[in-house]
């Protein structure tokens, strides 16, 4: 047993040594990587014995030993085009297997902001200090094995700086492409976004893949929204059916800032998204919404933590889930209202729709309140399609299968419509509709 456990870690150790040799960096980053590797070695991958991972089993990921690939990319602009949207064709940054790819990126509409390879930002005297103060600050690697693994393999990524008072018109897209033509590849994308005081921007993340082998994505995205800044963050996870996807989004909000996140989880064989928002200044507000859709042989897990540390902050959460086939989903939403965080207004809603008798969802809302003058509410619901609604559609000549997809789509739409970017919304409408159709057809 001991040797079995030690084996994969040795393999990561070996890859880590190779990385240090291949991509040396400045002393403080070197130190961060080494400490992170140490932490990963002692923490390892989380197991189902860990309360936070009770329903999501990463044993296969631990066993497969996915490693970063150093293969040269053969992708061209045409391969990327289908992953961008009308609004982001000139504001798209591509990470290929986690590595910043300038050739595939188009940043012509991003002249008002700084978008760099994270490693270039570290080497740049203008940004070095900023990166140093925020990198690994909200996504800490000390007690999370996956974040430690991502941090240990830091060799690229994206640094985004939206300067003070800048209003970015075009949404900024980050496209994470996993090249899964080669089996067993891992990517460890790392992103740091700093929205400076009173700036305003839209950020779109799109996780996609090319090829059909099994692969592992372990992404860490850190977001800093400073005083009075606004950030609208849409995250689309559309990995392949053979993907293992784990990701962490950590946001910290400044005084009077607003952060609006919508996470759409459609793909992956196993997907896990941890999102945390720390509100450690007064008057911040966040919306943390999401949709997860799982079908046959899919597993999707969302863990959110909203940490109210200061008074007068509002948080709103709406997560919806659609489970079909033998698909399984998990939602764990924690709202923490710390002592002194008076006048907090926190709302959390989780609604789930089960489309088949084999589908399953585990939902667990958690409220921890240590202040006495707050307004907090949460609710979780699990249900099936309403028979009266189905009959109504049938009575208009719509066949039962189509009626089911229409109602399911309508259920999802409440979240999709929160995405304020027209072409993304339209595409999602299509994707969700298609996904539902195919599933419903194969089921009948």
């Amino acid at each position: 047993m001991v040797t079995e456990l030690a084996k994969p870690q040795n393999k990561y150790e070996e890859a880590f040594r190779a990385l240090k040799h291949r991509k040396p960096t400045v002393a403080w980053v070197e130190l961060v990587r080494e400490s992170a590797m140490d932490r990963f070695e002692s923490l390892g991958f989380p197991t189902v014995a860990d309360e936070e991972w009770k329903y999501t089993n990463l044993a296969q990921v631990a066993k497969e030993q996915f490693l970063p690939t150093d293969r040269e990319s053969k992708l061209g602009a045409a391969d990327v085009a289908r992953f961008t949207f009308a609004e982001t064709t000139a504001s798209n940054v591509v990470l290929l297997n986690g590595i910043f790819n300038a050739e595939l990126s188009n940043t012509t509409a991003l002249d008002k902001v700084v978008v760099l390879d994270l490693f270039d930002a570290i080497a740049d005297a203008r940004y070095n200090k900023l990166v140093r103060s925020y990198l690994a600050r909200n996504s800490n690697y000390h007690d999370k094995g996956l974040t430690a693994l991502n941090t240990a393999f830091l060799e690229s990524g994206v640094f985004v700086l939206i300067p003070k008072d800048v209003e970015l018109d075009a949404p900024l897209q980050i496209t994470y492409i996993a090249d899964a033509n080669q089996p067993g590849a891992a990517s460890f994308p790392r992103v740091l976004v700093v929205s400076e005081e009173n700036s305003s921007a839209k950020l779109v993340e799109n996780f996609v893949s090319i090829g059909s082998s099994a692969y592992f994505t372990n992404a860490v995205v850190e977001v800093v929204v400073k005083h009075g800044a606004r950030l609208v963050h849409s995250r689309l996870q559309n990995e392949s059916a053979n993907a293992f996807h784990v990701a962490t989004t950590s946001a910290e909000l400044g005084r009077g800032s607003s952060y609006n996140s919508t996470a759409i989880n459609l793909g992956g064989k196993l997907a896990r998204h941890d999102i945390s928002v720390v509100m450690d200044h007064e008057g911040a507000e966040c919306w943390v919404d999401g949709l997860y859709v799982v079908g046959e042989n899919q597993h999707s897990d969302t863990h959110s933590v909203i940490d109210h540390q200061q008074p007068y902050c509002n948080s709103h959460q709406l997560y919806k889930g659609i489970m079909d086939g033998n698909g399984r989903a998990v939602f764990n939403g924690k709202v923490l209202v710390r002592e002194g965080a008076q006048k907090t207004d926190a709302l959390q809603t989780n609604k789930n729709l089960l489309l088949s008798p084999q589908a399953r969802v585990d939902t667990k809302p958690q409220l921890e309140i240590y202040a006495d003058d707050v307004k907090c509410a949460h609710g979780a619901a699990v249900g099936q399609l309403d028979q009266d609604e189905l009959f109504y559609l049938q009575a208009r000549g719509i066949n039962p299968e189509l009626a089911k997809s229409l109602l399911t789509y309508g259920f999802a739409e409440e979240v999709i419509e929160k995405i304020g970017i027209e072409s993304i919304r339209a595409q999602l409408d299509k994707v969700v509709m298609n996904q539902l159709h195919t599933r419903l057809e194969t089921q009948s």
Partner: protein
Amino acid sequence: MLEVRNLHAAIDGNEILRGINLTVKKGEVHAIMGPNGSGKSTLAKVIAGHPDYEVTAGEVIFEGRNLLEMAPDERAREGVFMAFQYPIEVPGVSNAQFLRLAYNEKQKHLGLEELDPLEFKDLLKERAKVVEMEASFMTRSVNEGFSGGEKKRNEILQMAVLQPKLAVLDETDSGLDIDALRVVAGGVNQLQSPENAVIVVTHYQRLLNYIVPDFVHVLANGLIAREGGKELALELEEKGYDWIKAEMQSNGTGAPAN
């Protein structure tokens, strides 16, 4: 067009319809009236194929075919339409999308041409006039946030788009103010032709001032207690339903007293 013969239907084992006979011919307007619990809404739902109701005996023949063997969606595509007493909200699906889908499903079924969104928009604009509905209703989700009157108008709009052979209006007048009632009734009248038929299910005579029936059938205790022309509706308005119930008790067709 429609032949209902000795129809018995139950919900959760309770028999609601106890032997209904009804013949509806092309071009006719029939009113089904009756007190609460008489089974008139059940009759409408059984014709539309609501899965909660079990037909225990009898038959329903529509255009020479056994209606009871058809799924609800097939009945609709064949030309049976029920305007719901409580129209359902379908969030996330726009009225225009929904109507086009329903329209095209029917066209496809009948081997007729389907319409693309632009062509359909023109058709919709034309048909919407029937119920005086504004364009803004088309982009809103089906019935979501609609007032009671708007929902009923939307039902008639659906009817206008689908142009059924047989329309069954299930208490379409309930909860309507006089203006909405006039619009809804006007819509139904415009859609009426020698080729189709309408069954109006209602508790009150009020709607029948606007949609004038050729025949009135009064239900009580799951049976047709009285039949007549439009003057029967007026008689009921004046005398209420109690005399019919009393009459049934006395001739032994009433339900046993609880």
